């Protein structure tokens, strides 16, 4: 794949006009007035039949689960599902990466984790509503004292009590935390053993809003990504039964690393998503910069004719081509039924996130004073793009994953 197909372009155009009509007019409310993004996302789902498609793929996934099939479903040639997921991400990110973050965490991380690791009952109880965006999901691993070291340094505990567990601890920077109906939560098993706490088993639970002992904070104030509500979760003696243990009770000889694997599998999904998000930011910044460079006249000529401005534009184009190629490669791999390795996904994320951040900051520079003023939009994209280098694993963590693979 070296360019979008006619169908891809038709999807892009349809989403683009939806974004122009439904997102752009509401951008101030979403970015600055605390209006949560969920209604816009739901409207997009209904408008393009994404909810219906989610219900159909849920049905197939449930059937596979009941039949005991594991692994990825077999794909037909020319499968378009990766493109259909990534194109709306790219288009939304040209204006509002926060919306994509909320949507991706709810369906991809919270929904995806339940669909993959959940029992058929759990899939029906929580998975379907998350995949259709009828309910909002959060995926909670990060804690105040452990971010990059989330699995090792986790302090939230699950203490067995008869047939149940009692959860205590807190989570932070949780996307959709303030509003989530369903929360996928990771906790360390605390069965009183003398094992090194870093090495203890990680368990995955599904919680509902309003459970006794669970507090969801108000949204935190942030540098950017303001249209995506981020919050803290506090757990004091939250009692959960086996029905909320992801995958249900299993045979005692089962692998003790399942919780960790469940968390890690998501790293690949979210890192590929960040590349598509970066592409949206880069495309928009480049388009805005070209227009501005042609129309801003200084010293008697458009600034586009100054070589230092041309250098900025050329570097933005190089970044756009590279990130687009990474996205195309991901779509191509996915339709061939292949998944990138963690190191590949990390390389893709590292490069794309840095490129988006650099391009957006250079766009601010190119716009001069206007670059710093909200009306010209690049300042928002620059603030938003910075988070790509932090969440879903910081740049430094991507580097450690790439290096570990190279040196193995």
């Amino acid at each position, binding site marked *: 794949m070296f360019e979008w197909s006619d*169908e891809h372009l*038709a999807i892009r155009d*349809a989403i683009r006009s939806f974004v122009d009509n439904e997102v752009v007019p509401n951008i101030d409310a979403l970015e600055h007035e605390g209006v949560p993004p969920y209604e816009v996302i739901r409207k997009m789902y209904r408008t*393009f*039949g994404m909810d*219906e498609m989610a219900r159909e793929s849920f049905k197939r996934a449930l059937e596979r689960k009941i039949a005991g099939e594991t692994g990825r479903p077999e794909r037909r040639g020319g499968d378009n599902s990766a493109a259909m997921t990534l194109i709306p991400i790219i288009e939304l990110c040209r204006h509002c990466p926060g919306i994509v973050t909320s949507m991706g965490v709810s369906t991809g991380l919270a929904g995806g984790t339940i669909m993959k690791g959940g029992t058929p009952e759990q899939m029906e109880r929580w998975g379907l509503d998350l995949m259709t965006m009828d309910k909002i999901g959060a995926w909670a691993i990060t804690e105040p004292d452990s971010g990059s070291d989330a699995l090792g340094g986790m302090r939230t505990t699950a203490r067995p009590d008869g047939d149940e567990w009692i959860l205590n601890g807190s989570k932070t920077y949780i996307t959709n935390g303030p509003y989530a109906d369903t929360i996928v939560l990771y906790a360390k098993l605390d069965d009183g053993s003398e094992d090194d706490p870093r090495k203890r088993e990680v368990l995955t639970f599904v919680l509902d809003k309003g459970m006794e002992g669970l507090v969801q904070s108000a949204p935190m104030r942030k540098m950017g990504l303001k249209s995506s509500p981020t919050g803290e979760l506090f757990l004091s003696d939250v009692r959960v039964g086996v029905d909320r243990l992801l995958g249900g009770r299993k045979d005692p000889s089962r692998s003790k690393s399942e919780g960790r694997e469940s968390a890690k599998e998501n790293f690949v999904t979210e890192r590929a998503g960040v590349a598509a998000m970066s592409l949206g930011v880069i495309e928009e910044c480049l388009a805005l910069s070209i227009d501005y460079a042609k129309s801003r006249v200084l010293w008697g000529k458009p600034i586009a004719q100054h070589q230092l401005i041309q250098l900025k534009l050329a570097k933005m184009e190089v970044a756009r081509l590279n990130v687009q190629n990474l996205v195309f490669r991901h779509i191509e791999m996915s339709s061939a039924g292949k998944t990138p390795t963690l190191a590949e996904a990390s390389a893709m994320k590292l490069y794309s996130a840095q490129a988006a951040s650099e391009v957006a900051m250079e766009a601010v520079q190119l716009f001069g004073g206007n670059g710093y003023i909200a009306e010209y939009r690049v300042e928002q994209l620059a603030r938003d793009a910075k988070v790509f280098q932090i969440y879903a694993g910081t740049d430094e963590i991507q580097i450690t994953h790439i290096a570990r693979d190279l040196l193995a």
Partner: protein
Amino acid sequence: MNVVVCVKQIPDPAAPQSLEPSTNTLDRSGKLILDDSDAYGVEMALQLVDKAGSGEVTLVSMAPNGEVAGLRTALAMGAAKAILVSDDALKGTDALGTAKVLAAAIKRTEFDLVLAATESSDGYTGTVPVQIAELLGLPSITFAKSVTIDGSTVKVDRQTEAGYDEVTAPLPAVVTVTAGVVEPRYPSFKGIMAAKSKPVDQVTAADLGFSAGDVGAAGSGQTIFAVADAEARSAGEIVVDEGDGAQRIVSFLEGLKVI
């Protein structure tokens, strides 16, 4: 209920346009898209068929170079199939010639109603639909702001300067719709994917029974011999508010007899 919708594929109005120097007509050699004003007819047709509970929407279009991009958009919205008349011999066809071609294409289908936009966004003659009606020997109603079907009658609220007229006609009929008639839907993802396998029957002028000289530049009764820029609008009057701004605007409007 089978509805035919005449749809025009036009150069993207957002892109720069040029005229062909020899004919003074719009250069249509690039990629064409569905005329926005036709999306209303497509939507209206889909809703009427949906309400009737059976039947389908067929698109009819005349366009150069076998262009189907605009048709795919309307097929993605839900139309079932399309007839595309594309033929080098049609280059230079005028409005009446276009109506003859479209009428001949429409005759190849079974239909209860023909919908079209009031006028296209690139040509603006606004004459083709009524010419089609005449050629097909059917009643026509223009400027519909609402269309309903009652048995074998079409009921239309027809936009006028003062308000609207309630008009009916027996089916089959030709109706042109305004942009206010319905809100066009976005194509769903599934619709977009399905559109590429929906049938588009591509025919030539000869297939429709026309011979050289009937259509195209030769058959055209009109020649565009010059194109002139629109008259530049004269600068408006700027009212500098020195405390009496409101009063001066009121007197200006009174002078125009609008208040």
